[in-house]
């Protein structure tokens, strides 16, 4: 198929996915966009939000839209690793013979919702590590490959921290994005209420399948990246490390530890997808800037100075973007880059 045709199909598919998702999820455009990008890029997403904002609904709707086998794992403190991955059980066959059979766990799906993942014990959480990174399960020396596309969407409740187990850095690093689902606006809330009065079930229809997702992934990987843009992205990740000789002043002041090389991989991979989603055939600075927060916010740790200056991790990332842009000689920083500009925009809209 000609690339132009493929690109056209790509755009149509993305549009259809969005349309279907919006049938079940009100607002949250940025979240939806980023989730779609992550899926196409082949990454996992950590969704953080207060209860009831639609985290689970989004994933369930997504599963329907993508016509992918979907499973939901509700993480609780007593959840065992085998509850996630599956286990060997002894079964009597038809002949009455006892055999050991591997009973697959809920992880064996294309789309997995790991609900409230921070409530499970570290032991159970670590069971997810191999799955999320390598898309396979190893039990009793037997390896079971998961079917592609495989995608884990985990949720976290930022409020109830009692009895929770913060995700280790190694596992956090395996999430491509960390997205923050915010409380809906008043108008959105009204729409949610009106929609759910009719039905609580997801009404999204399947519009793409797994094969198409893989095809889209392959197409996105062909998007070219100019060396200047690549250089900018690499500098951005590098500048999150305060211990490096050539680092940013922001990192020296506000960052405890920086992002791993997976962040750089995630940035570029997702930037390519984002470019194509927006109808561009190349990655731009705007793509990098837009994806910087989802990619970096769960990978860097801010220090007490930032807390003291009342700066959150997103604010620090905004400062990093500004400083990196200045250092590489970019004349304009895109509108999505800085928090101040976003807030100014918010104020203007409200006025």
């Amino acid at each position: 198929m000609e690339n132009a045709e493929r690109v056209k199909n790509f755009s149509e598919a993305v549009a259809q996915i969005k349309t279907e998702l919006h049938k079940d999820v009100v607002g949250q455009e940025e979240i939806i966009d980023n989730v779609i990008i992550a899926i196409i890029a082949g990454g996992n997403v950590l969704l953080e939000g207060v209860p009831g904002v639609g985290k689970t609904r989004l994933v369930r709707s997504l599963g329907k839209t993508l016509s992918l086998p979907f499973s939901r794992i509700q993480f609780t403190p007593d959840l065992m690793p085998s509850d996630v991955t599956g286990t060997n059980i002894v079964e009597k066959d038809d002949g009455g013979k006892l055999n050991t059979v591997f009973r697959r766990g809920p992880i064996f799906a294309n789309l997995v919702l790991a609900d409230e993942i921070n409530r499970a014990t570290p032991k159970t959480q670590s069971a997810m590590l191999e799955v999320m990174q390598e898309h396979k399960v190893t039990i009793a020396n037997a390896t079971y490959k998961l079917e592609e596309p495989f995608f884990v969407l985990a949720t976290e409740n930022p409020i109830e921290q009692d009895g929770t187990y913060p995700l280790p850095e190694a596992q956090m690093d395996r999430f491509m994005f960390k997205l923050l689902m915010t409380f809906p606006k008043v108008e959105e809330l009204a729409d949610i209420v009106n929609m759910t009065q009719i039905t609580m079930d997801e009404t999204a229809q399947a519009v793409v399948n797994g094969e198409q997702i893989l095809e889209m992934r392959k197409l996105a990987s062909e998007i070219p990246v100019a060396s200047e843009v690549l250089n900018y992205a690499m500098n951005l990740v590098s500048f999150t490390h305060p211990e490096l000789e050539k680092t940013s002043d922001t990192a020296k002041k506000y960052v405890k530890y920086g992002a791993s090389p997976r962040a750089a991989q995630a940035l570029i991979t997702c930037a390519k997808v984002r470019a194509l989603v927006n109808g561009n055939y190349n990655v731009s600075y705007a793509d990098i800037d837009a994806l910087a927060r989802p990619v970096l916010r769960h990978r860097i740790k801010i220090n007490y100075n930032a807390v003291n200056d009342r700066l959150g991790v997103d604010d620090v990332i905004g400062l990093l973007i500004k400083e990196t842009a200045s250092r590489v000689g970019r004349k304009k920083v895109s509108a999505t880059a800085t928090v101040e500009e976003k807030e100014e925009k918010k104020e203007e809209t409200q006025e």
Partner: protein
Amino acid sequence: MNEFQKIKKKFHKEAVLKGALCGFSLGLLTVGVLWIIFKRTGMAFAPWLYIVVGVVVALASGGITYLILRPRDKKLAKRLDERFGFDEKVQTMVEFVDESGEMVELQRADTEARLRELPKQKLKIRHILEFILLLILSAAVFVTAVFIPAKEEPKAEGPTDNAYEMDEYDRLSLRQLIEYVKNSDLEEPAKTEVVSELENLLAVLDDTEWESEMKAHVIGAIQRIDLIVENVNSYKEICLAMNESTNSEVKALAVAVSELEEEVFQLAIDGTTGEEAKEGIRAQFNLTEAALNPYLLTVADEIKTALKDSGIADTDALYKAWNAFAVALEEVAQHTGLTDEQYQSELDSLAFAPLKASVPVALAKQAVNNEVRAYVIDALKEIFGITDAEMPRLSGDKVPGMNGGGESDKEQDGIHSGGLGSGNTVYGSDDMIYDPDYEVSEGVFGGHISYGEVLDAYNAIIMGMIADGTLSEEMEEMLSDYLDALYSGKQNEENKQDGNE
């Protein structure tokens, strides 16, 4: 990348235009600034150098500007992306220009389409106004340089020069001086040369308009006249040459020659008598035969060598006199078996007598040359108001290094060992003239005094009267002749015919 190349060409033209504007402006500005600086400081700077500097600056600055502004693919791509918000499309296209691949080609096509859609007016030259302003500024500086006046050199402050016009008095005085020299006993060719010099001076001064010029001409004439007389005299050269001898008698003879007075010379040869008797040079030759002959030959040889070394022509009178003396000594040296008295007699008759007769005569002529020189120089000083401070260094009568500074001990004895003359002014006549202002004794005025003492004053008065036209023609002629006679010691025409000079 056709669209991109088209845009690149446009920017390239822009770079060339801006480079040319910048180069021309800076070249013009540099020339203008330099011109102003050199004009106001009064320093010289060849016109062709301005052109060279201007061209070099123009080429260098224009070239550098072009090199900075010329569109390079990557830089231009970045510029286009930033300027038109192309989200790094052009940069990506340029970077992957050599890549093939469906997505790359799609990207390229998409970018080209975007570039094609760019309105032409968006690609017009930017910031050209700054370059035009630079050109205007440079032109203004250059025009200023053209019209700015050069620094005026302050007139050198020095003695102000007065205008000069030769008056009748000067002209008459100078003509009289010429006549004096013509009628004087100055030896040839000096006489002719001095007359020529004075006549030239007369001609030149007629056209002279400034006092400083006049003095320069007069001083020049004085120097040349001094040299002319110096060249015609020979006593100095012979004297110095003889003084170089190692022989004491020859040295003594040199000292004697250095005095132009005959009496002094005679005394030097013969010695003095009386209470303060002193041996003369002649007495040094009283030796026995055995010693005398070789001695005489030695002296003769020394004298001849000195004469040769002096550079004076052998036709010169003084040269001849001394040479004859040397020859006579050689002749006496041939004689043997004579007594002391005989030797002395031979020396006296063959050598010293002719010497004493001929040398003073030769020296007297040279003394007259000096007198005429001194008279002419003093007259020129007087007529044209040359002060002693303005006078150049002259040869003088004295032989350099031969006690020429002042009176020596020998001078007190009447023998002047150094210098020529006693230092007293010698006039050509010993006439006495009446001076009504001369105080003969206390309260008694009017008496005759040596004419030389008031001659100059009389001359000036009479010259003034002649110039004013106070005197009649006949009186003028008479007085002019009279003054000529006084100054040059000239006899009247009748005495001339009698052969008395």
